[in-house]
């Protein structure tokens, strides 16, 4: 997995399962490019199991798709698998210039041996929608 510096990256996002509370400081600002690192935790198991390693290992069979609305103007996968097809464990989000509500839906697709970059194939392992507010960048 590549991890290149992104121009104007000012903050890192981290989250687990159904919550968005794990944003670096809980606030997302307008006109900012964020680099997001996704971690998948299986909290049905005790102790909680980190499934991310398995996804990295099988990155050629997995794809995380992003569907955005509102004050996030783009959310795209940044990392690539061995076939140079996106994975999405690291993604780049651009927030809009005006503040407002936003949602980003993450869908983890399992596409064993058939991955093309399309989100319409394979079966869905996880689908989570994050809702949050994008607020005005302090001057």
């Amino acid at each position: 997995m590549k991890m290149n510096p992104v121009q104007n990256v000012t903050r890192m996002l981290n989250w687990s399962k159904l919550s968005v509370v794990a944003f670096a400081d809980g606030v997302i600002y307008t006109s900012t490019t964020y680099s997001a690192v996704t971690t998948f935790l299986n909290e049905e198991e005790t102790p909680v199991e980190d499934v991310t390693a398995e996804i990295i290992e099988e990155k050629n069979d997995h794809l995380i798709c992003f569907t955005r609305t509102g004050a996030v103007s783009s959310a795209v996968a940044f990392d690539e698998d061995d076939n140079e097809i996106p994975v999405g464990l690291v993604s780049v989000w651009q927030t809009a210039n005006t503040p407002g509500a936003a949602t980003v839906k993450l869908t983890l697709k399992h596409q064993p041996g058939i991955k093309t970059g399309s989100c319409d194939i394979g079966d869905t392992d996880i689908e989570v929608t994050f809702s949050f507010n994008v607020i005005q960048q302090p001057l």
Partner: protein
Amino acid sequence: MKYHLLLLLFVVGKLSMGQTCKLEILGQVTAGNERLPGATIFDRLTNKSATTDEQGNFVLTGLCAGKHILEIRFIGYKSIEKEVIVPVREKIKITLEEDQTQLSEVLVTASSTARSSTQLSSALEEETLNQLHGKPLGESLQRIAGVGALQTGPSIFKPVIHGLHSQRILILNNGIRQEGQQWGTEHAPEIDPFVAKQIEVIKGAEAVRYGADAMGGVIIISPPPLHNTGGFGGAINTSYQSNSRTSTVSIATEGLLPTPSWSWRIQTSGKYGGDYNTPEYTLSNTGQREFNFSAGLGYANANSELEFYVSSFNARIGILRAAHAGNLQDLNNSIISQRPWYVKDFSFDIQNPYQEINHHLFKTSYKKNLSGNNFIKAVYGLQVNNRKEFDIRRANRGDRPAIAMQLLSQVFDVSLDHVAEKHQGSYGLTTTIKINNNDTETTGIKPLIPDYRQVAAGLFALEKINWRAFTFEAGARADYQYLQALTFTNTETLIKPDFHFYYLSANAGMRYAINSQASLTSNLSFSNRPPHISELFSQGLHHGTATIEEGLLLPNGTLKIDESLFKNERSIKWLNSFAKQSKNFSFEASLYANLIDNYVFLQPKETRLTIRGYFPVFAYKQTKALLAGADLTLNYTFLQNFQLTGKYSYLYGQDVTANQPLIYMPPAQLDTELSWNIPYLSLYKSFLKARVLHVAKQARTPRTINPVDLEGNPPPNETFDFMDAPQAYTLVNLETGFTIPTGEHDITFALACENLTNQRYRNYMNRLRYFADDIGRNFIVRLSYNFYSH
């Protein structure tokens, strides 16, 4: 292949030249412990006949070597056919059975099980079954008018009789009630069809004789009787089909023990196959494996019969990989794309998801003739059913099943039957004990249906009276069932709710023989069934179907032990049939109406958001349902060797309360077959057959809602489907075959082509129709070898 065929013909030609037509058959006809004088023996091949003397002995002379079919007749006894290979080493012994249902000769009644004679039944005989070797049981049964199948891909077939299935159909396997995990729509009967010599389907409600499980009908699987064997013999059946590259082998041997009156049979079969294919793509992960075994040991003398039987059914069946829908969006994508998202090259490998099923049976039965015309029968059976379903699971848990359970059941039935000229009857007691355990340690998942204990007992009485051209019949039954579930409340506390069910069934029927060729039958049956454990307690995600299922006791998704939440299912079925049979023509028409109160079915309730997105929640509901329909069967023989058979069935299924069609009701279909029995010199039973199956589009369906339109919008309280019913289709099948008799052995060869035109189609009753087409052209080769057959 051509080379081999020529070689065989050459051998036969040589044999035919060496034939001498001076051979004879010596035999003796008995019934019970008495010798039968005056019985007629008729050789179909030569038209020669003989009559038995005072000692029951007969001799047929001037016969050629080879296979002969003898027909043995004596008034008051069931006529039987016997294949005899001349020259015969020893005197053949023929035992006739008293005809208990003389008036119902129109029906095929080879089954020795005492049952209603005013019910509608049809059977698949040995010859037909031979042509279906290698097919799953449920697929073979579709040859009978009015019998369909709920399918999950190309190898899982669940029988549907007049629109009813699962808990409402009883399977009687070699005289014992099959106790498996029949509640799931993707659970096929755990039976090896190779054990059967005859499969009979009773289409009426036989709840009086067999209990509530027989509300929708009974499938009777009969192996050949053990005590009729006359020496060592057996058969090897092999088949290969091009679509899925499946090979099947079955070997059966039977014989007599050195000790008098004891006989045995051992049978084993195996199946190995890979992915099926449609005309355009492979159905990845639809391979299957099967290994089955059975053994029987029987003792029979004039007054009693004792039998022991063990069998073991073991199967691993792959489920189409693309049918694993993650959530509603995935399901939508599958429906829109018209092509499965997962298509790989052909493979024999079976990956997740798949099912692994083992069913073991031990049975013993005893029958004794008492004084007069009474006999007593007792059957005990022990069955162990293991079912494991392996799903697609994350984090290398794929080798851990998502469902793993064991059902241990014991059955003990005893009945007292009497057979007199004017009246026949049966009285009996049936008991069942069932223990179901989930292996949650292995699965790590809350089970879909809980552990349970069940004890059930029923008492029944049936009586038949013959008066002039009429047969009247009436029966009644009382049942008690104790059910204890071991389940968890939402706070994870173990609770053990228990239930006591009392219920009654009754049946009345009449048969009128209009003349020697035509008869009219009418039967009215009332049956009653408490909901099954799965209908009460189901709770969880059914991965293959991407649905969450909730039982009647989970009104708001949370378990509530309240008996007012459900009622017993009650069915009133009226079945009428008219049958006519003449030399070249036979016809049977039946009409039925089944009104079911508190009919249990799965209805969509809402959508639920989970970590994997939206899932539809289906809740078991009860409603008033009407199932009515007609079955027509026609058989016409012309120009001596040609036979035309037509079978038509139509079913109307309506949810009366909601005033909308019932979902998953078989569409109308017409099955026609033209066969030509080729009169060819040394080849025996050679034929050429063309079969055309037309399945209409199911016009009466609930409305269609696209899966994505459901997301977050709980649908109204109505039944719907995710996809429109598929279009009508017509399939053409061709088959040819012949038998080569070689002394005491014979070889049968058959070649068939199914879906000759490689037609693309989807079947409304196949749950995988949301994801993929049905299977394309398929060539089948069958080779059977019978040795020392009798």
